[in-house]
């Protein structure tokens, strides 16, 4: 794995989201229709042969973004473009699913306990009419691609006979069966044993290189995002607060929330203990704070932060942050 090249030539975006919004209705016995603003105005680009990490905590909306991109939920606003073409309607569903796949977090429930590994791997091929040749050979080849060898040993097993890491690999193999262009991974290693995580992360990195996949890696762990991703996008309370090259965002975070996240993450190589300011918890998404949603917790909050939501301000090449501090009128960092 090499360090990020800052001047990557512009590649075609495999999957792009423009101003994606999702509001969930809240069932209330009242007059006002209240909504949970789970995702608000999120834009991102996934490029082939690249990993984009979405970092955030629970309630930040990152999992909702993954599900929106996988078209498991329909957006309230904004649009999704696949290779430049806007995606609409239901008729495009199966074709979309051939090109965009999803891997979920929980290895213990992402595989159906009553079906064998062979069924899990063969079913997507059947659904998309890719069944020429020997189905067993196809399944075995998939298992080899995710380093579950010898494949013959695994193909007849049921999920409860596999370990967490092996199940996750089967889930990845299933997603790869239809040869997608985009692979969305929602916290794929969070529930795995620590010593196994790197193996799966390395597998994703290899798939990015060999298959030129566009990978979305959703996580709450900023260290693994730094390890795997080329681009890191930080989300807070349903909005994007910072985007940039992975090492730059983690080493020189521009947004106060990213700084808080970076400081709070365990770092054995840190010289001193960090005492964090910015105490508190993420806001309610039913009635989020006005202006910048982070301002109640922000140590640098100014008057304007309470009134107006900040724009995306460039901090350096390819690195933007949604923070008033970085505009000309804001205080210098």
């Amino acid at each position, binding site marked *: 794995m090499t360090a990020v090249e800052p001047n990557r030539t512009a590649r075609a975006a495999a999957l792009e989201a423009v101003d994606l919004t999702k509001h969930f209705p809240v069932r209330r016995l009242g007059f006002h229709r209240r909504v949970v603003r789970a995702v608000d105005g999120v834009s991102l680009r996934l490029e082939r042969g690249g990993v984009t990490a979405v970092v955030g905590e629970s309630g930040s909306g990152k999992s909702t973004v993954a599900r929106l991109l*996988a078209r*498991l939920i329909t957006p309230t606003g904004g649009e999704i473009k696949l290779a430049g073409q806007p995606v609409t309607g239901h008729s495009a*569903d*199966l074709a979309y*699913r*051939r090109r965009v*796949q*999803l891997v*979920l*977090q*929980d290895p213990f*429930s*992402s*595989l*159906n*306990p*009553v*079906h064998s590994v062979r069924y899990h791997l063969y*079913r*997507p091929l059947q*659904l*998309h009419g890719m069944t020429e040749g020997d189905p067993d050979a196809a399944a075995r080849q998939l298992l080899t691609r995710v380093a579950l060898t010898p494949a013959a040993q695994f193909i*007849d097993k*049921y999920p*409860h*006979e596999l*370990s*967490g890491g092996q199940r996750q690999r089967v*889930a990845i193999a*299933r*997603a790869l069966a*239809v040869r997608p262009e985009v692979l969305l991974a929602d916290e794929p290693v969070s529930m795995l044993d620590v010593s196994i995580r790197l193996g799966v992360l390395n597998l994703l990195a290899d798939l990015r290189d060999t298959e030129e996949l566009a990978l979305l890696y959703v996580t709450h762990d900023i260290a693994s995002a730094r390890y795997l991703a080329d681009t890191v996008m930080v989300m807070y309370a349903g909005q994007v607060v910072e985007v940039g090259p992975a090492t730059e965002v983690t080493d020189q975070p521009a947004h106060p929330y990213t700084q808080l996240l970076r400081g709070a993450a365990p770092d054995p190589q840190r010289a001193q203990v960090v005492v964090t300011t910015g105490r508190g918890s993420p806001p309610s998404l039913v009635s989020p704070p006005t202006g910048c949603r982070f301002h109640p917790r922000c140590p640098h909050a100014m008057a304007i932060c309470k009134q107006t939501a900040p724009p995306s301000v460039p901090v350096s090449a390819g690195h933007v942050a949604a923070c008033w501090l970085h505009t000309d009128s804001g205080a210098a960092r």
Partner: protein
Amino acid sequence: MSLDIDPAAGTDVAVAPVGITRRRSRPVRLPRSPKILCGLGLLAFFVILAVVGPWLAPYDPTAVGTDLLAPPSAAHWLGTTQSGQDVLSQLLIGTRPTVLIGFLAGAIATVLSVVIGISAGYIGGLVDDLLSLVTNVFLVVPSLPLLIVLGAYLPQGTGSNPFVIALIISITGWAYGARVLRAQTLSMRRRDFVESARVIGEPRRRIIAAEILPNLAAIVTSSFLFTVLYAIGTYVALAFLGVVDVSHWSWGTILFWSESQNAAQVNAWWWFVPPGLAIALLGTSLALINFGIDEFINPRLRSAGVSRKVARRTGLPKRSKLGLTPVLGGRR
């Protein structure tokens, strides 16, 4: 496990840590619990009786005889009725329709509850609202009065047709199972493998049939057995009340005649006790199997602890107290 009714089950009983895997190549294993074996044995007995009963019966059940209201004897093992009919023969002949209608009604009701319950749970929205409304109506309507009314409207000649009877009984028997399955489907819908199936591109009907339903196998079985129990009880009640044609022998019919001839007053216990006992035993067998399935689904219900022999050998208490982990070596 194939079913997660109680996801927190693992926190109560110390299920062995993650590192321990069981050697099973199929997800379904027959539990060797004594409850299930006992229940299955009893049920098998009655099913066999239903099949061979008519051949075993020593007399024609309707044939009147000379021995009136005779207590059990060598000639009539269960005695005779007011008109000299052999109770044992009536019981044996009557087993088949009782068991048959019970299972038939159970099957039809279960199919209905599966289709309606799972569809309501998975499709959601307006469909769910409508189906739930129908389910609730059928839950609330008192079943026996409804069946009596329906029975009165049956076309002539069909009153003894077991399929027709099973059909009308199943109309009142599907609603409870449908509610249970709807609740289970709702919780299963959010499981990751269902979402993954959607992402793969699986169509909705296949998700219901091939992804969700196999996982509900244990619950559907349990619901089926429960419904059979209900159907048998209802059929007996209908026969007892004379709603169904009493010229066709069933356990309920025996009770009908024994009641109308005041068998209890004349202390002719051999007339009503055997059919009552048979009903009770058949019901018990079904209930035992159900309990066994419950334990299978929810490990918490399994009786923890060690057998007496092992307890003696190792010095451990038979059932360890919570908060007092036993120590091998006998120290308490």
